[in-house]
């Protein structure tokens, strides 16, 4: 028999603030991403060859031809479907199955638990032992897919230095570079990446290169939460900047050409 304490929690600090901010942040970003996905416009700045990461790679026939760096192997999409529909499942899958985001939304959205030592409202709990949550074990596959998309984003960022008037550097280039830098840091700091690179080994001494990589990734992994948020927010800011330039609301600040 446990000690009879009727209160759900005796915590006196603002334990509810963190889950509240998480829900608000993820909700806001989800709404923004949905609006931009279905907008199907202002994703390409022809003059400077800026392509928003939300529409990269743009593979269907309805894409602006110059924005399709890898051709248009897919037909025009029916109804309300837009080009990002092919990449969003992978990007979303990578974030949803990420060990940091799992902690964030299990706490904030599912309240399992809402905070440490605060009772959860659910009567039963099976964790990640049954469908659909057992699918969280597929995180490594989303990591592979996200790595490919990251390489494509890096290509886009480099290609953006060559606009209609040839080589040039603008604020958009800097934003695209910072964006891929943050995405690369988030992807490399992933727990699955850490495991694949060396964490699975029993004998580091027999694999010095993989041990070195594991050490570097472990350092990045310690900042996984910060990288998860900063990369997510910066993707949206990058997209917003490109949308504003593409729509003519603002002009790109040019440093060279």
């Amino acid at each position, binding site marked *: 028999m446990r000690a*009879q304490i009727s209160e759900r*929690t*005796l915590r006196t600090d603002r334990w509810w603030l963190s889950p509240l901010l998480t829900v608000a942040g993820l909700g806001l970003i989800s709404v923004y991403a949905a609006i931009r996905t279905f907008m199907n416009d202002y994703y390409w700045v022809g003059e400077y060859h800026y392509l928003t990461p939300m529409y990269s790679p743009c593979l269907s026939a309805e894409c602006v031809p110059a924005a399709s760096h890898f051709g248009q192997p897919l037909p025009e999409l029916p109804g309300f479907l837009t080009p990002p529909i092919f990449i969003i499942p992978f990007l979303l899958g990578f974030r949803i199955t990420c060990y940091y985001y799992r902690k964030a939304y299990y706490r904030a959205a599912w309240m*399992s*638990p809402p905070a*440490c*030592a605060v009772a959860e409202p659910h009567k039963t709990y099976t964790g990640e032992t049954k469908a659909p949550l057992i699918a969280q074990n597929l995180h490594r596959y989303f990591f592979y897919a996200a790595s490919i998309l990251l390489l494509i984003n890096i290509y886009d960022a480099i290609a953006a230095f060559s606009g209609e008037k040839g080589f040039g550097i603008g604020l958009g280039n800097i934003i695209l570079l910072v964006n891929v830098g943050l995405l690369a840091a988030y992807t490399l700091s992933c727990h699955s990446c850490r495991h694949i690179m060396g964490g699975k080994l*029993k004998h580091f001494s027999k694999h010095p290169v993989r041990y070195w990589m594991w050490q570097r990734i472990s350092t990045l992994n310690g900042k996984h939460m910060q990288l998860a948020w900063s990369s997510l927010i910066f993707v949206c800011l990058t997209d917003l900047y490109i949308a504003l330039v593409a729509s003519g609301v603002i002009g790109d600040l040019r440093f060279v050409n």
Partner: protein
Amino acid sequence: MGYQGNFRVWRGDADGGGLEDFTVEVNEGEVVLDVIHRLQATQAGDLAVRWNCKAGKCGSCSAEINGRPRLLCMTRMSTFTEGETITITPMRTFPIIRDLVTDVSFNYTKAREIPSFKPPKGLAPGEYRMQQVDVERSQEFRKCIECFLCQDTCHVIRDHEENKEAFAGPRFLMRVAELEMHPLDEGGRVDAAQEQHGLGLCNITKCCSEVCPEHIKITDNALIPMKERVADRKYDPIVWLGNKIFRRQP
């Protein structure tokens, strides 16, 4: 400079109990355990509290202070304001014995369920040779003082008593990880972690890491690596195929 502090302490046993109010002198530099001892000496001589080293190394004085699992001896009074009422309760996850003392034998039962270190065949004690880089990962887990605060805060058993049979808890999943990462252990721990010790019940919400007084990164360095090893074995056909083709021992 001392002051009169306000405290609410849970008093009772398995038959019932509740929070009782006390006003106790608090002096500069003291920790919560000092105040509990003063309370015991001056007002509540029969107050039950388990303690031993007063240095955060024995793991005896685990309790909950203002609802947060903490060691009584490592919680400084200076972290509270003078006007604040401090609530001290026993660990919720374990059966109560009396006042602040709980029955933590659940943990010893779980400890016994984990097979001990299994060295390679033909290798006798004294013949073990290991590189430092191979053992230092699991050495982090040896810092555990077995205060069981991680077990107390883990919602899998704190909020769901029915999971106690299936779930070893973070402390003992960390023990499984320690053995699995040991360069000479041949115990084959991965399947057992998932099927016998309930690793799948963990949803990595990191409360165990948050409360650990030794600052062991239980989730990042033990539980998630074990989940990835389970994924290797059970959910990754590419790894399975690679092991077959290259005749690797998984």
